[in-house]
């Protein structure tokens, strides 16, 4: 009893038990590996038992998508170089987007009160605390605990997680917090009633707090309620990342020099970042 209590206290307050946790995780990894087998088998069956026609069809589709993506990439390259020239004019260092490492989600936390997922990359793959996790559609979360071969990722929909975001349309900055209800979603905190945020606005990561890379899509505003009885507007947003459907994700590998972003100027009259 006493041992359990003191362990809890120590783990809560100090960091040296992290090493214990780290080494015992060598024992728990096989359990997760076992639990993941049914999923892997179903993926494997999907891969093996497909007809040639389906494959050809999928192949054409992928080719088309690749073509589109490459076209957009060309545009993006032009925009990026233009952007960096403009930034050079402002004498600001460019926010580098960083390389990515692919990973797979192998489990989700079974505690309904917290939203975390386990990914199949750990300290042996060079994962560090605080790395951002993305899927193909948007920002998912950040690494909170690194184990030898796996890591726990706190999703942005966890009610204890706040993501610094800005409205893509006008640069209005705010913090998106995971909603406290059962449905996974985001709430914008402490937004004044006069703020220019409308349903359908795209929220991108603002890069403030220097945790998440800048300008990744995060969520879409789904409802804006101005209640005269409340000091702030009640704004809900739906995360763009497919939190509970996707398996393939990406970890952003931070660059050493990318920590300092461009200076941000805030105009008090219009609330617009210039």
């Amino acid at each position, binding site marked *: 009893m006493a041992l359990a209590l003191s362990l*809890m206290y120590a783990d809560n307050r100090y960091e040296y038990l992290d090493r214990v946790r780290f080494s015992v995780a060598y024992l*728990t990894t096989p*359990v997760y590996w076992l639990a993941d087998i*049914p999923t892997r088998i179903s993926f494997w069956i999907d891969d093996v038992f497909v007809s040639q026609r389906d494959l050809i069809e999928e192949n054409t589709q992928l080719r088309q998508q690749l073509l589109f993506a490459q076209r957009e990439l060309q545009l993006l390259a032009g925009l990026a170089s233009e952007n960096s020239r403009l930034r050079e004019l402002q004498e600001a260092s460019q926010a580098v987007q960083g390389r990515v490492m692919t990973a797979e989600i192998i489990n989700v936390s*079974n505690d*309904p009160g*917290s939203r975390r997922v386990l990914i199949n990359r750990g300290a042996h793959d060079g994962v560090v605390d605080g790395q951002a996790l993305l899927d193909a559609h948007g920002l998912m979360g950040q690494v909170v605990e690194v184990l030898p071969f796996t890591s726990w990722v706190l999703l942005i929909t*966890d*009610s204890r997680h706040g993501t610094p975001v800005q409205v893509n349309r006008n640069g209005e900055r705010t913090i998106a917090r995971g909603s406290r209800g059962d449905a996974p979603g985001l709430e914008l905190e402490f937004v004044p009633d006069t703020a220019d945020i409308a349903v359908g606005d795209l929220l991108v990561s603002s890069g403030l707090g220097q945790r998440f890379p800048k300008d990744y899509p995060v969520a879409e505003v789904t409802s804006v309620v101005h209640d005269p009885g409340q000091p702030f507007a009640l704004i809900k947003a739906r995360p763009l990342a497919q939190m509970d459907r996707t398996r393939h994700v990406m970890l952003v590998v931070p660059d050493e020099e990318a920590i300092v972003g461009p200076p941000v100027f805030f105009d008090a009259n219009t609330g617009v970042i210039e």
Partner: protein
Amino acid sequence: MTPKSNGIWVILLSFLVAYLLAIVPFPDWAMHYRPQWVMLVLIYWVMALPYRVGIGSAWMAGIFTDILEGSLLGIHAFTFAILAYITLSLHQRVRLFSSWQQSGIILALVGLVMTGTYWIKVMTGETAQGSMLFLLGALSSAFVWPWLFLLLRQLRRGFDVH
């Protein structure tokens, strides 16, 4: 009767399966209905073999749960030890109950332990304070108990674990 080492692997295997069932991903809406497999298996072995599986084993099982879930070290060790203690003090009575009466006891026990775990988690900031819906897990645990009990008893008799 071979002393001690007899059939330890049956007990360990049942715990391993319970851990697997405990972490197999569930869809979001079914999260709350997940039976507490590890607690159930623990209660069974404490009831069946109180001289072999006791508070110490419960403590170890709890620590393993903590590491598996990435929760604060000691939470489950603490609550599982309490669970084992209560079960130890009740086991002679509960053994005589019919399976539905046992289910009632399981409902109370698992509900109590889950609430305790939840309180500690909220106190340490591990989880956000939310609804009490997680107690549905105790309900589903009570529901699966009669079948789990039969299965484990078959196993225990079949492999002659005592």
